[in-house]
């Protein structure tokens, strides 16, 4: 029982990363009907930007001697990195997606993939092959509840993710930009007739998705401090799968499916040898998609790849 609850906690943490990244995929999809295949690498870039910001802040503290507490540095790191990374998203939209809005969807997918490769390689070229270790901004403390062990980092990771998701939810439900995004996901074509510029909403969506990915990147860095340029491939593709599983374009679905994927993986690894994790997790996904071809919350309309 304790082990079960322990795995729930682990699943929550692991699912947080997937959910945060999946949200970015899903948001872009919901308004443009295109997946941003470079998104997994935006997560990686966000993590590195987080590393840079954190290092800079620590350097600032060391230089000036102003005693900033660790948690404050962490919060500043998250905020600054989210801000900076959002521009990466805007850039990707401008360069890779806007020119291809009327092109076949497959072409945009290829462009996205290629931008992803460029981000990976670019990182490798700039920083070299050595792996960076993310600075530990807060001391690790372990709490014990009955038989379960929970670290403060786990609480922080899950808390920050849930908080960001709630903020996103509020933004989408209450703000006029959120309303425009929802409208765009329903009927892309007539949105301009409401006086709404698609060329403002689309970059905004990319920016928000990228900011969330950056947050995921920093939280990931807290839990697993070793960064490498290909970290976005593993997590990004799985988060992409989660986004699809949730129902393309469904924000709630993406978040839930992200957590679900986290749970599946943690529990599979608990019951079976951990090497079987991918096989079983993906087989479950394959089965779900075979019998529910539109995911959990997706609309049952088939979009063809335009050629």
């Amino acid at each position, binding site marked *: 029982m304790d082990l079960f609850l322990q795995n729930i906690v682990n699943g929550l943490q692991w699912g947080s990363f997937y959910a945060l990244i999946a949200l970015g995929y899903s948001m872009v999809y919901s308004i443009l009907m295109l997946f941003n295949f470079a998104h997994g690498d935006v997560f990686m870039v966000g993590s590195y930007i987080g590393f840079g910001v954190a290092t800079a802040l620590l350097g600032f503290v060391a230089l000036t001697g102003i005693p900033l507490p660790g948690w404050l540095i962490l919060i500043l790191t998250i905020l600054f990195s989210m801000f900076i990374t959002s521009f990466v998203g805007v850039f990707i939209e401008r360069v890779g997606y806007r020119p291809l809005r009327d092109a076949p969807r497959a072409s945009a997918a290829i462009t996205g993939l290629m931008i992803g490769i460029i981000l990976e390689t670019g990182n490798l070229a700039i920083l070299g092959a050595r792996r960076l270790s993310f600075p530990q901004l807060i001391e690790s403390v372990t709490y014990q509840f009955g038989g379960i062990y929970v670290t403060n980092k786990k609480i922080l990771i899950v808390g920050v993710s849930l908080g960001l998701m709630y903020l996103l939810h509020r933004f989408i439900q209450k703000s006029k930009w959120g309303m425009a995004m929802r409208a765009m996901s329903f009927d892309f*074509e007539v949105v301009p007739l409401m006086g709404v510029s698609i060329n403002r909403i689309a970059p905004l969506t990319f920016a928000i998705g990228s900011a969330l990915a950056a947050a995921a990147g920093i939280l990931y860095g807290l839990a697993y401090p070793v960064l490498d340029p290909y970290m976005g491939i593993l997590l990004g593709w799985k988060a992409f799968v989660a986004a699809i599983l949730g129902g393309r374009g469904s924000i709630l679905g993406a978040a839930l499916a992200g957590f679900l994927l986290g749970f599946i993986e943690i529990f599979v690894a608990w019951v079976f040898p951990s090497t079987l994790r991918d096989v079983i997790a993906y087989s479950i996904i394959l089965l779900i998609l075979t019998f529910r071809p539109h995911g959990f919350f997706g609309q049952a309309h088939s979009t063809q790849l335009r050629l």
Partner: protein
Amino acid sequence: MQLEIKNLHVSYGKIRALHAIDFSIDKGEIVCIIGANGAGKSTTLRAISRLLPADRGSVMTFEGKNLLRYQPDKVVSQLGISHVPEGRRLFGNLTVMENLQLATFARRDKDSIARDVAQVFSIFPRLMERKSQMAGTLSGGEQQMLAVGRAYMSGRRLMLLDEPSMGLAPLLMLSMFEALKEINREGTTILLVEQNARLALKFAQRAYVLENGRLVLQGLSGELLNNPEVKKAYLGG
């Protein structure tokens, strides 16, 4: 002349849908375009609201400004031309109220927005009752009301209406046109496209007849109603 269109050509790929359309509308008028399915009526409206690019050589001026210089969203927000598209195209996942609010996305005048919402609800009291309902769950008539209400919120210099009678029961149709008359009395110019020619000609002051992408006839509604050719082709006898 509020809207002046000269030599408008529109093509879908290689296929030309509109050939050298010329027409103009005065402020405060109600003008309709009638014609068969596929004659190019919707295309004309979509060209005016810039959803479709016009071919080279086309001239469109609205209140002295070159319409072709404006992006579709600016046509609405800066020129005040609203468009009720064919099939209404409401945002079914948004509530009635949100549909109305979205139409004011680019507007900065907070107070008058509230006044306009009140005005929409006074024209269409049914919408008031359905305020927080999802637009997708409305009945056909209510959807049409919302579509017009949404256009009313987004811009009121010129309203383009694409088949406002489509799928409405006769009684509802009447009240819809009553409402449009009221909006017109407040000073909105109306350009509508109708398949139901008889209805449209009774409602509008002037009309243009479109056939295969060409304007073939124009005149006052009364004249056209009695024109034997129009009678034969569009009025069923």
